[in-house]
């Protein structure tokens, strides 16, 4: 189906407004005092374990923010880093953060510095632990491999956008016996993290991390709103599967007309220029 969606059609507008409305409604409900329940996510529970292990062994923690730039995915990874950094600061552990993007680098340094300061241990923060390595994928991977081996990290956290280098980082951590927790919305790399890491956070669980770790009402409410959004999508799918089935029954199995009508509906844009 070739849909032209350079601009929002009526359907897209209604759907996105509905999803955003659901999310906002739940955010404000949670802020108003109705703290929602979130089920346990094993990978996220293991983060505290990983930092604790590093403290016991007297070895540092490694946290990789992936290959993304200043985007939503990396922002979420920074939120998890903030939590890890505070834990590490509390237990007087080191967190080494190799960074791939020059724009993210000062943000990362600030997140780490603030975490140590918030725990009353600003003197433990070592600026050399936040290192810009390279913006090239495999130069970054070789640098991280070297750091993991030389520092003999006890725990490795891999959160963010990853590509082919994901398995290199994960296996390097395994070589030194590190406990590894990985989380990425890059679905094609998840199998490698599952094979090589102790815990893997899959798909949407990645965006649930900040809610789960901080238990902040805004994030919890947003997560519930996401659930409602999924219900809305599921309901749409179920209803439209029914419509498609009915069409199939009444048109002898030929679906071409259905696809044409669907395309027209999904692309319908009131007020668009003639000839589109």
């Amino acid at each position, binding site marked *: 189906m070739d*849909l032209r969606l350079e601009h929002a059609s009526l359907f897209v507008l209604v759907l996105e407004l509905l999803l955003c409305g659901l999310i906002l409604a739940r955010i404000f409900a949670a802020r108003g005092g109705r703290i929602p329940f979130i089920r346990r996510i094993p990978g996220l529970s293991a983060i505290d374990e990983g930092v604790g292990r590093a403290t016991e062994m007297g070895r540092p923690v490694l946290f990789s923010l992936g290959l993304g730039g200043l985007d939503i995915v990396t922002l979420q990874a920074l939120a998890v880093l903030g939590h890890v950094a505070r834990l590490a600061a509390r237990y007087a552990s080191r967190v080494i953060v190799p960074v791939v993007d020059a724009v993210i680098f000062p943000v990362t340094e600030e997140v780490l510095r603030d975490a140590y300061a918030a725990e009353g241990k600003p003197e433990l923060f070592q600026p050399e632990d936040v290192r810009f390595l390279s913006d090239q994928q495999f130069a970054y991977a070789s640098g991280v491999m*070297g750091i993991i081996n030389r520092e003999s990290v006890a725990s490795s956290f891999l959160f963010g956008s990853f590509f082919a280098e994901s398995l290199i980082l994960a296996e390097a951590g395994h070589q030194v016996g590190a406990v590894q927790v990985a989380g990425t919305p890059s679905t094609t790399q998840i199998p490698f993290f599952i094979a090589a890491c102790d815990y893997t956070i899959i798909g949407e669980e990645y965006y649930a991390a900040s809610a789960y770790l901080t238990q902040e009402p805004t994030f919890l409410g947003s997560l519930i709103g996401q659930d409602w959004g999924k219900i809305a999508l599921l309901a749409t799918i179920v209803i439209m599967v029914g419509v498609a089935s009915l069409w*199939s029954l009444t048109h002898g199995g030929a679906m071409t007309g259905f696809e044409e009508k669907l395309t027209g509906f999904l692309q319908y844009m009131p007020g668009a220029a003639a000839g589109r």
Partner: protein
Amino acid sequence: MNLDLAIWALAALSTLAIFSILYRENPVYRLFEHIFIGLATGYGISILWTQVLLPNWWTPMAGDGKWPWIFALVVGLMFYTIYTPRYAWMSRLLMATLMGMSAGIFFQGFARLYIPQLAASFLPLVQPEPPYVLFRNLVIVVTIVTVMTYFFFSFEHRSKVVRGSASLGRWLLMIAFGAIFGSTVMARMALLTYRIWYLLQGRPEIGT
């Protein structure tokens, strides 16, 4: 010395140095790691100038007379205020603006990426479709529904229906991830095969 031979020799040395980490981290690997990062940084600088700043900033400003482009440098310098406690707020202002733009772009990206996939999920599950197409449609719809059920966060999977659906979703996910894993193995082996071929057969003849 023949340039091609020199290039091959350096390449072979680099390959062996990197492969040495498979045994353990060692001074040779460390040296070449630092060389790699240095080269990548230098490459980044040259690309940044020749492909980003020169054609998009310097040429319009100094070549075509569009002097307001200098304000881009002023804004870019705001990044560096993060190192000064007094002016660090300016870097945060710039980052927040860029994050806002990134968020705005996502609304469009969501529609372009997921609406066509949503539409492609509206599949008929009723005869008189040929049986194999019906089976295919059923598997797709069931997979989508059960996998999405797995990702509900707001309730424990206590109900039998929900628990069953989420379990089935997780199993189907594992099969899918296994398929991705298997499909990548050959590609990775091909990379290694080429490197080994290069070491063994890629040496240029001396004198050519």
